[in-house]
């Protein structure tokens, strides 16, 4: 079983977080966010990260080249 991730520039990671806080009897939760406010990816960076991650590599498949200009008229 595997998760998924995207690649990012190395220098935007900084851990911030707080103490573990009980929200009910015997249940504790906390969140640690490694992305600083200034480190939020722009749309351009996010798009580049998605491209680099291989998310859209399926477009390179020969099976995606089934259409050509001869298949229809431009709208």
């Amino acid at each position, binding site marked *: 079983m*595997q998760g998924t*991730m995207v690649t990012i520039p190395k220098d935007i990671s900084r851990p911030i*977080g707080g103490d*573990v806080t*009980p929200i009910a009897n015997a*249940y504790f939760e906390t*969140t640690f966010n490694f992305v600083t406010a200034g480190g939020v990816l722009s749309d351009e960076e996010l798009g580049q990260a998605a491209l680099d991650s291989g998310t859209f590599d399926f477009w390179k498949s020969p099976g995606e080249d089934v259409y050509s200009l001869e298949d229809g008229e431009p709208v």
Partner: protein
Amino acid sequence: MSSGTNTATKPTALAMVICEMVLRDESTHNVSLIGLFDAITAARLPARHDRMHVFVSLTGIHGKHGCILQCKAPDERVVFEAKGEVNVQDPLAVADLNIQLRGIVFEVAGNYVFEFYCDGGLLTMRRFSVVVGE
């Protein structure tokens, strides 16, 4: 870090799970763990993982106990550390700890490990790997 209020029981780890999502029902308080995994694939490194949860279930907790969660890289370097205090009065109760990590960065591939310490002693651990590939 124990309060010393109990010597008959000692903290015991029932489970330690790495997953993508933890859902807690508001009415029943039942917890659902979604998307359990033990490996992460990245196209290249360093790589950021958007969201992961480390879920730890403990029992035998009586009073205050100091807990530490560490994530260690393949070279034993500590990538991440979280410290907190768990305070449960019923040693028979199960204490669930849901630790969410947003945007954690992995710089190298290999076998990582989450280690959970209670009162300075290693209670349980869970390995996972970071793999470079398509």
